[in-house]
């Protein structure tokens, strides 16, 4: 990394020594987990570059945009509509929450039995190691699970620009009305932040930009239906993770380029793993960068991941927003319609998620499902049991995993995953 970045990081108020340590660990993990894979598509070179510059060039780009007057909004959840952010000429970035950091300090503010994702978001703030968070003009929290909504009360003491969005918990007309009024309130807040009024034209353009990004991911997902799988689950997960950070147009172009290459591979019957490799669908909690623990274990145990039923995956990216509306209000309704379909486990009841898991098993020809639950994540851990039961009734093998970001259970998980893969053969 160049000296340029060091002064940039210092200006952002990062703790340089801690940040160096983080980048060291991240770089090593990327080397061991990603670059060690065989038969990767050439197009992944783009994502290797993005990851090598994730705290460097991308931050510089964001700061350049900032200098030209654009605002940066950070978010922790797929319910924050990027369409509204872009339409007001701001930029939306996902905030870091995929690794343990400054855990001892975090546990002064949060109970120990808080999920790793929430602890991580605090760790990156307290440890002063997330340049995205420090660049953000507005940080959006959202009332999803109890853990997150109470944690934002404490996060509010650590940051000056937290905006909390309320969310429905029931898919009812009342719930939808709440979502709409919250998106209207968010729109007003974003317009106030940027000083830009959202117009029908800017909103339509924003919808198209985000839809294009989603469509590229849909195309990538669809190519994963092939056997042999043309891309590893690790690499596809990475694309889904970078979805939250990258310049949308460039991301769309890069994913489409990989898809062109994958189509060629499928035509040539070339894959990352041999034909008939056991195929696994991962379902459950989001896997944020650099949380690659489970896919690494799965794909070194002789199986391939063919889909992620996850916020960082198809739960987050499926369904486009209808762009046919002519007024801001029409399009806002379309945005509400689109996001209201997200089948997060905070909703009760949540039968859509179980249906989606079964649809994905069929579409991606998965041999089994691994339900990925973060320890102390009540909504997903609770749903895991009925999900497993429903899948087993249909003779779809399911393995429930409950873990965190620590590495001490890797041996145990490896045994369980390997045994599950043996079961699928």
């Amino acid at each position, binding site marked *: 990394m160049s000296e340029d970045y060091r002064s940039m990081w210092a200006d952002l108020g990062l703790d340089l020594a801690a940040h160096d340590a983080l980048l060291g660990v991240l770089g090593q993990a990327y080397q061991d987990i990603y670059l060690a894979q065989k038969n990767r598509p050439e197009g992944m070179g783009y994502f290797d570059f993005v990851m090598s510059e994730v705290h460097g060039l991308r931050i510089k780009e964001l700061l350049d945009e900032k200098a030209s007057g654009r605002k940066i909004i950070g978010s922790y959840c797929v319910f924050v509509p990027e369409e509204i952010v872009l339409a007001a000429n701001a930029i939306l970035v996902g905030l870091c929450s995929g690794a343990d950091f400054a855990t001892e300090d975090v546990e002064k503010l949060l109970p120990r039995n808080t999920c790793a994702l929430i602890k991580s978001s605090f760790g990156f703030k307290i440890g002063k190691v997330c340049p995205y968070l420090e660049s953000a003009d507005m940080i959006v929290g959202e009332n999803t699970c109890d853990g997150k909504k109470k944690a934002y009360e404490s996060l509010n003491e650590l940051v000056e620009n937290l905006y909390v969005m309320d969310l429905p918990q029931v898919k009812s007309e009342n719930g939808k009305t709440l979502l709409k009024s919250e998106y209207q309130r968010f729109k007003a807040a974003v317009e106030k932040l940027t000083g830009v009024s959202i117009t029908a034209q800017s909103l339509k353009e924003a919808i198209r930009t985000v839809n294009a990004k989603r469509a590229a991911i849909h195309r990538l997902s669809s190519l994963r239906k092939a056997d042999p799988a043309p891309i590893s689950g690790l690499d596809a997960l990475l694309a889904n993770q970078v979805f939250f950070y990258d310049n949308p147009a460039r991301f769309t172009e890069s994913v489409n380029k990989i898809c062109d290459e994958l189509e060629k591979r499928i035509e040539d019957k070339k894959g990352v793993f041999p034909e008939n490799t056991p195929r696994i669908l991962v379902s459950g909690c989001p896997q944020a960068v650099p949380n690659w623990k489970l896919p690494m274990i799965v794909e070194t145990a002789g199986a391939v991941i063919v889909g992620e039923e996850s916020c960082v995956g198809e739960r987050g990216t499926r369904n486009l927003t209808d762009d046919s509306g002519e007024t801001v209000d029409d399009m806002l309704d379309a945005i509400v319609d689109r996001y209201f379909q997200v089948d997060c486990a905070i909703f009760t009841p949540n039968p859509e998620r179980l249906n989606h898991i079964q649809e994905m098993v069929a579409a991606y020809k998965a041999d089994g499902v691994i339900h990925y639950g973060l320890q102390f994540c009540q909504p997903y851990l609770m749903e895991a049991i009925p999900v497993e039961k429903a899948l087993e009734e249909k003779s779809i093998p399911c393995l429930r995993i409950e873990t965190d970001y620590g590495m001490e*259970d890797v*041996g*145990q998980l490896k*045994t*369980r995953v390997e*045994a599950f893969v043996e079961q699928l053969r």
Partner: protein
Amino acid sequence: MRFAGIDIGSRTIELVVVDEAGQIKVSIQADTGFDPITEAKKIMDGVGFDRIMATGYGRNLFEIAFDAPTVTEIKAHARGARTFFPDTRTVLDIGGQDSKTISLFENGKVKKFEMNDRCAAGTGKFLEIMAKTLGYDIEEFGREALLAESDLSISSMCTVFAESEVTSLIAKGNSRREIARGLHASVIRRAAGMINRVSSDGDIVFTGGVAQNPCMAAFLAEKLGRKVLIPEKPQFVGALGAAMLAADMN
């Protein structure tokens, strides 16, 4: 040809060699110590076989050191249990630091399994430490528990908490046998829960070192109302399963 299976567990290593008819020719056990590969070399010294398959938590180390195929403990125990009892549909294995339950399809394929979480609760290590706290040898622990006249409830499953609970029960003047019985009952409750999650009826084949404890088998049968079958030398079942799977590769 002769086929070997080696089970490198957290506490002990077992080596089994079978002939083409599946007859056990060699079975040796040693402590794992802190260098499993050196111990594995020692145990294999002078033992003849044509192919070896490794299982247990040390299987990946063995794979790197000896370029041998590996199999998980789950599949190995399932195969081993079937060697003794061909109709096995449910297996309970309690080893040194882990426990697992497995249900099998009629053809012997693994249908579903459960494993204990990260800690040693409900495993051989738990019983070993509790026996020591009560001043019993591990061999007499189960026998003595069976002689107790009534049960005593032990609520802690955590080895550390259970130890202090036992200490306070001793201080209150409770009989050693009753405390021992209560400790066995608590391990059985946990094992029964794991069994019920994978299978609801039929005989249970009990494997792993802890199956040698007579109290465990008796309590388990009583608790679940199901027959509990114990192979001869249950601690060798994982290694035997690996040896049989090595033979199956032919």
